[in-house]
């Protein structure tokens, strides 16, 4: 675990050593706030909760999370530092998990900085803060799922633009799988696919969290989803590291 944390610590510090972290956090906060209060009809709804915020987060993450992960391995390969990192006396999986945890902690920081929203609803009304906490947990798990996809794709290429575009596309599949357009189309044409698509949809599962439902199967889904992609990440690193 020591090696994992060492890798994670260096990685997290590197976000803040460059403008990446600040740009990401500012854009995330501005957009999540704006969308919640405008398109989300925060005031007009007359309900003291953060439903509109939780509805927008997966779509914001869809573009912002790949922006973090695109450099995760691609940058190491471009700089050649991957050779340094992987010849330290640490196992490859430790490097993979460490980098993932750093990116995840970073997303957690960005989410935590949306706390003024929580204060706002608590001042204006009497929300169920347990439901809000569940929603935040769901957001964090969605971020983890996207990060795991993005990290694995980043390990496959030296080119950050390619890593970004492919990661957005892959995340979009899992974000859109539960949307009405997709499920209606599938249930008309391929009924058995509709069920599978809903099952893979991260947005559907986040909706449950944002209503305050923390189901064991949803937690299991996210943990195994992240696990599978991290495993793919480790294989991708192993196959492509020296290219």
């Amino acid at each position, binding site marked *: 675990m020591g090696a994992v944390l060492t890798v994670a610590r260096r990685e997290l510090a590197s976000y803040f050593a460059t403008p990446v972290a600040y740009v990401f956090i500012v854009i995330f906060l501005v957009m999540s706030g704006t969308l919640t209060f405008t398109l989300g009809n925060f005031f007009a709804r007359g309900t003291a909760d953060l439903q509109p915020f939780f509805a927008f987060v997966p779509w914001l993450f869809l573009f912002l999370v790949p922006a973090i992960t695109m450099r995760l391995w691609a940058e190491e390969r471009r700089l*050649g530092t991957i050779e*340094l990192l992987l010849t*330290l*006396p640490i*196992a490859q999986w430790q490097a993979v998990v460490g980098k993932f945890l750093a990116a995840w902690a970073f997303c957690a920081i960005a989410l935590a900085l949306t706390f003024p929203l929580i204060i706002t609803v608590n001042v204006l009304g009497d929300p169920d803060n347990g439901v809000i906490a569940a929603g935040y947990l769901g957001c964090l798990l969605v971020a983890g799922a996207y990060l795991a996809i993005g990290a694995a794709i980043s390990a496959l290429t030296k080119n950050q633009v390619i890593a970004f575009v492919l990661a957005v596309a892959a995340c979009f599949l899992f974000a859109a799988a539960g949307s009405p357009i997709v499920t209606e189309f599938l249930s008309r044409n391929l009924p058995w696919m509709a069920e599978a698509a809903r099952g893979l949809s991260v947005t559907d599962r986040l909706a449950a969290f944002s209503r305050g439902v923390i189901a064991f199967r949803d937690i299991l889904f996210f943990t195994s989803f992240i696990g599978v992609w991290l495993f793919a990440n480790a294989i991708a690193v192993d196959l492509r590291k020296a290219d």
Partner: protein
Amino acid sequence: MRPFPPRRNPSAAGASRSPAGFQPWGDVTVDAPYIEIDRLTKRFGAFTAVDDISFTVHPGEVLGFLGPNGAGKSTTMKMLAGFVTPTIGTARIMGDDVTERPVQARRHLGYLPEGAPTYPEMTVTGFLLFTARARGYRGTEAGDRVHDAMRMTQLEEVRLQPIETLSKGFKRRVGLAQALLHDPPVLVLDEPTDGLDPNQKHEVRNLIARMAPEKAILISTHILEEVGAVCTRAIVIARGRIVADATPAALAARGPDLDAVFRELTQETA
């Protein structure tokens, strides 16, 4: 596991590798090799980068790895460091197989990759502290290690500067400091003096010479004068194969000078 002499035993290492090379008690138990390269082969598709290379390096030896660009020097070193997986064969560091026990093998190893890659946005101290922690040092011990490594490579004056602002010579020394930090018994340095000015080259060679008696050191270079200056033995490789393995003096004696011998050796197979 095969026996190897305890680390930090200059008497065993130094005495058995006396210049005369006379070892009445034999070569096996007193002086087991720190580096063993065993029929190492690497193919990239149809191209064979390293073709069935075997050699050993004993403590007290500084082995110069020579060859034209693309001869397979770096690929061999990458395999030894466990970064590239061999197609056939293996390598052992202090008896630990680099493919079967990679983490243990790397603990004995200080490795300077080709081009001395470092994280540009980190400060020199931050970067070295990271490698110290990755090697399991904590707290004040990590700090001491970093301090010692910076002193050996003369980095103190730039210790708080981001690496990206440093000159090429300093960057190379940061890479070197990272490799020396844990005082490893085995050093593998891929072109350690590349990009250094003559004074810095001299310093690095002195550093290598000072460490040589108790370590097994493998350095790759294409600067032939360097071989005579620091190496006790030289291996010339061309097209992935070993074409010569001798002391620098013996190698130079094969022709008018080392340059001519090198050209002849590496061109006759081309």
